[in-house]
């Protein structure tokens, strides 16, 4: 009996099968990376312990209030647009009109890296400058995020300026370098910048 010749398998439909799979994965794939504005919430104080009251001078607080119709009031007097907040916040943080807080071993010193107006009626030192953002419950989330974004931008811009001056590279370049290859020296630089311009944002109870 003659053995039947083993005919070759037809591979022509292979492409069709692969295409079918490809289209399936194309449709189900989501490539979006979740990104957003990172925030750290303040820790809740122990209710059994009495919280020490901290007195902060009025001039060291930048008061931003948003009402339910998305209107912004700065320091209780100036009616501004979202785009104006960045400049106001930068001027406020960078003012450097006085001395920093004396920490254990370091005496109080003026801000030698600030380029602000040194107005005695505005903030003393970046480490003392508090930004207070009070919003109404009815404010829209988009507005809230925009303001948070502008505040973040103000800090980033100040850090970047100082970073260029000290290390010759912008702040976000430092962050990127650190992510690509984490090393102690870059971390020290980032920490230094963060310490020079710490983010102090307070969010009081919303307006009812």
């Amino acid at each position, binding site marked *: 009996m003659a053995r039947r010749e083993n005919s070759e398998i037809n591979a022509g439909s292979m492409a069709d099968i692969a295409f079918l799979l490809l289209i399936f994965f194309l449709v189900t794939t989501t490539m979006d990376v979740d990104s957003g504005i990172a925030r750290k919430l303040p820790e809740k104080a122990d209710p059994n312990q009495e919280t020490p009251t901290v007195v902060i001078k009025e001039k060291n607080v930048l008061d931003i209030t948003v009402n339910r119709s998305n209107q912004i009031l700065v320091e209780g007097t100036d009616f501004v647009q979202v785009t104006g907040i960045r400049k106001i916040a930068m001027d406020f943080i960078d003012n450097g009109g006085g001395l920093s807080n004396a920490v254990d071993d370091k005496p109080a010193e003026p801000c030698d890296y600030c380029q602000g107006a040194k107005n005695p009626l505005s903030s003393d030192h970046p480490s003392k400058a508090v930004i207070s953002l009070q919003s109404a*419950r009815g404010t829209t*989330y988009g507005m809230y995020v925009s303001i948070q974004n502008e505040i973040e931008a103000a800090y980033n811009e100040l850090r970047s300026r100082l970073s260029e001056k000290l290390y010759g590279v912008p702040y976000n370049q430092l962050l990127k370098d650190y992510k690509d290859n984490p090393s102690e020296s870059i971390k020290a630089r980032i920490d230094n910048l963060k310490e020079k311009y710490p983010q102090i944002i307070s969010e009081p109870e919303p307006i009812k």
Partner: protein
Amino acid sequence: MSKFKKKKKGLPAISTASLPDIVFMLLFFFMVSTTMRETDLVIKKPVLPVASEVKKLEHKSLVSTIYVGKSKDKKISGDKIQVNDKIIDINDIPSFIFAERALRKEEEVKFMTTSIKADKEANVGTILDIKEQLRDINALKISFSTSKGTDLKSNY
């Protein structure tokens, strides 16, 4: 006439033998980069606000997501909060976070981030309530999920 015949001889059919290889390559790329959609939204898909100073959320496995948006049913007003596959009450957020924590290793818990994906039309009150709940249980790392862009005007 003679010209036509010459041309036909000079053009052999393009070989399609390597087509499967190309397709397979594409296929493997999408297979590797794909992530299946884990949650079906029962609320209306939130339109995220735009922000320029965004940070990428790292360690996807350590992120728990809370969605805030309007109900699909037009008759129901107010913001709805969705986690996993269902709409929950604001007071159930701590138990959701505890459940998320139970799934992770203990040493990873402190790196866990809560991502809030809220519609830009949502009320800040709802967001602040969520933040308050998260503070209560010491889930302090949060991220306001946004899409990257510079056109802040579209937010409000």
